[in-house]
């Protein structure tokens, strides 16, 4: 921390910060923890998806209050979450239903509470499409208006989706695991293979490979995978071996010292898995987390800086994936999960990061196309796009700029590496079979890259 930073976060500094209009960041609810208050639901057009899903999760539900009369009703006690089932909505007038249930909830929601909106992924007709997109506008606004760490997210559901297929998503959204995911929308479909059962240790005895896991976000991803029961293979460059060994030992996993840009990187990952876990062993989760930045304005960027970033952040995974998918011992199994890390800088573009943005936007393109290609094997491919996350990488950003990044999102703080890791854990979950080709921003609804 810089002097300025220490000052701002010290006790007298807090006073100054308040005077400056910088609110003290809320401590977010995290981990596998449901909201404390009641989960209330409102089915606006008769869909039972929300109630079916919550019943599967064993979460007791109440009915949401509606603002129908002269005086808006108030919740007697703070509620933990409002789940709005907006499936079946086709007309603009029906959007009024959202207003009616949101009005009391905006004040009634507890700190780190949740608004979850379910909508149809596919609709026909002009008005229905306008409604579909209108919901996203509402969702994003709710995210921005909610205070004290409460979030709002929107799930577009495929027509034939079942509660079981949505369960892992609902569980993720309600729990503290989604703490830094706010104002986002993504699609959950009906997979070809049925989703796995929900479990508190969904990755039990499965093998999860995490690249770049000697430190930062990667170390936390490995930690979450291990917490969820996985045998983790921690991959990082030999130069980071000491830290890598410590991570692997702490998590009871194995360390593989490997530069992912090496020509035979995929082969070596498979060989490691087969030699440590047996010829029959297959990788369940492959997390392409290793990444680098080599920031310079385009005017000062040479071919080396350009190439390095694209090599590590994108080209390496393009080479590794097909090797691990060719059925070899120690490769990816059926129903495997592949996860990449994009970045809000990739989605939005960022001054001085043309190479990085190319690689990270490239990840988004790769994930979408790749998901379709491997769908019939039951394999999912997804990405997270972290916003500002407090790590060694972002500690390099000058303080004032860093403070601006921290504050310019709806939660008024930087994310914790655990937030990225939890979102990846959600992708890795066998129960998340219906989630593929998605890019979820873990950014606290950052203004950048919307």
């Amino acid at each position: 921390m810089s002097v300025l930073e220490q000052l701002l976060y010290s006790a007298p500094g807090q006073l100054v910060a308040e005077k400056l209009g910088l609110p003290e960041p809320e401590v977010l609810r995290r981990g596998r923890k449901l909201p404390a208050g009641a989960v209330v639901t409102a089915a606006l057009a008769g869909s039972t998806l929300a109630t079916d899903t919550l019943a599967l999760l064993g979460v007791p539900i109440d009915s949401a209050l509606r603002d129908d009369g002269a005086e808006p009703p108030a919740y007697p006690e703070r509620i933990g979450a409002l789940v709005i089932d907006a499936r079946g909505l086709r007309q603009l007038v029906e959007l009024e239903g959202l207003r009616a249930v949101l009005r009391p909830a905006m004040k009634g929601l507890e700190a780190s509470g949740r608004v979850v909106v379910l909508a149809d992924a596919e609709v026909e007709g002009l008005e229905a499409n306008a409604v579909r997109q209108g919901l996203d506008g509402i969702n994003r606004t709710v995210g921005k208006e909610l205070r004290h760490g409460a979030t709002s997210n929107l799930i577009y559901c495929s027509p034939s989706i079942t509660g079981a297929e949505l369960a892992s998503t609902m569980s993720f959204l309600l729990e503290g695991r989604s703490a830094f995911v706010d104002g986002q929308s993504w699609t959950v479909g009906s997979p070809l293979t049925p989703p796995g059962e929900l479990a508190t240790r969904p990755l039990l005895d499965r093998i999860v490979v995490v690249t770049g896991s000697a430190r930062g976000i990667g170390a936390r991803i490995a930690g979450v995978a291990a917490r969820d029961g996985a045998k983790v293979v921690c991959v990082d460059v030999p130069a980071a071996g000491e830290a890598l060994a410590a991570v692997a030992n702490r998590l009871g996993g194995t360390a593989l010292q490997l530069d992912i840009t090496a020509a035979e990187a995929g082969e070596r990952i498979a060989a490691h898995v087969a030699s440590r876990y047996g010829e029959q062993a297959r990788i369940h989760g492959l997390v392409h987390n290793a990444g680098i930045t080599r920031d310079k304005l385009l005017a000062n960027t040479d071919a080396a800086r350009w190439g390095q970033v694209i090599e590590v952040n994108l080209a390496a995974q393009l080479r590794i994936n097909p090797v691990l998918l060719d059925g070899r011992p120690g490769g990816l199994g059926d129903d495997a999960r592949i996860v990449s890390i994009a970045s809000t800088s990739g989605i939005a573009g960022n001054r001085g990061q043309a190479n990085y943005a190319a690689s990270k936007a490239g990840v988004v393109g790769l994930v979408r196309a790749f998901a379709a290609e491997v769908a019939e094997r039951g394999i999912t491919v997804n990405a997270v796009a972290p916003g500002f996350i407090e790590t060694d990488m972002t500690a390099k950003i000058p303080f004032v700029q860093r403070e601006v990044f921290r504050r310019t999102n709806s939660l008024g703080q930087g994310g914790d590496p655990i937030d990225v890791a939890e979102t990846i854990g959600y992708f890795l979950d066998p129960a998340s079979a219906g989630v593929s080709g998605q890019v979820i921003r873990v950014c606290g609804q950052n203004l950048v890259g919307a």
Partner: protein
Amino acid sequence: MKLPRSAVIVGGNRTPFVKAGGAYAQASNLDLLTAALDGLAARFGLAGRRLDEVAGGAVLKHSADFNLTREAVLGSALDPTTPAVDLQQACGTGLETVLYVANKIALGQADSGIGAGVDSASDAPITVTDGLRRALLAANRAKTLPQRLEALARIRPHHLLPIAPQVVEPRTGLSMGEHQAATTASWGITRAAQDELALTSHQNLAAAWDAGFFDDLVTAYHGVTRDGLLRADTSAEKLAALKPVFGGAEGTMTAGNSTALTDGAAAVLLAEQSWAKANGLPALARIVDAQVAAIDHTSGDDLLLAPAHAVARLLERQGMQLGDFAFYEIHEAFAGTVLATLAAWESAQFCSDRLGLAKPLGSIERAKLNVHGSSLAAGHPFAATGGRIVASLAKTLHTEGSGARGLVSICAAGGQGVVAILEAV
């Protein structure tokens, strides 16, 4: 004797080796050995697992480190109920710890274990002079204050000079280098031949690093990611320009063709072959056999040529020829040691007079010798060298293919030598 159980080398791990007083100057033997064990545990997923035994040792050891290996185990990721033992046989220590564990495995007394070694010339114990020691002991025994003061009054200024350990043979008073200088001269080993061997060592080690050979053999430590003594850019000219350090002004031994004082640690994971398989661990090579031998340097034998005797006995027992090996690892204590060993094997006179053989052991293909570099380039943290060699050779043999054999030869102070045969699984 062929035992029903096979001890196999699963893999190894070491720290990068660095010059004494360098990057690891603040690290103790315990720190280094713990790091080597932790890197091994991470590579093979041993965290929290109990192994049957860890054997380790150091040549330069503090008396406080009487249980060095056990303490390292307790500080490591291994299950704390893993027992440990300290062994020591000078520079043979590292190989002896491997053999100790391998033998227990072969005999059925263990299924898994680690052979390890460490040395930190930076952390070398400094002893006090005998005069100071006697005075302090007397003061300690004293019952009254005046008696104590009287004892302490016997301390003289010269008693206060610290004595650093020296690599000197107690019975001859000669340093190892001086011993080797005599051997080098008597075998007619030239400066050029020694420099060439040193150059090859650096070139081989550098190439191995560049090829990623050490990616699964070394774990970075204290920010060091490669062997610190390695000079990838050295040349015959640079080596030729160095001044002799042993053997007087006319000597042929320089800092370039002699090993430097080095800090580092190495560990080798061993297991019974089927146990390794059942536990999802690879098997690189099996330990076929080993032999230790000693010569009498006090009556003029070459101090560092004991391994030549050990090899002769080992080959005889195994019914093998010197040419039966795909790779040879001869520890480069000095370039002259390796070259004298090769010359001894080729010498009809030495083989008949000293080894009692009808014909010489013969010569080996130099291209099969120390193919990934050895101690001249990597450095030589005494007790860690054996582990370095065994793990690297096991990997090399495994890559060569099942059945490929390798011969390890390590010379040690006191006129001793340990040799072993490995065979790729």
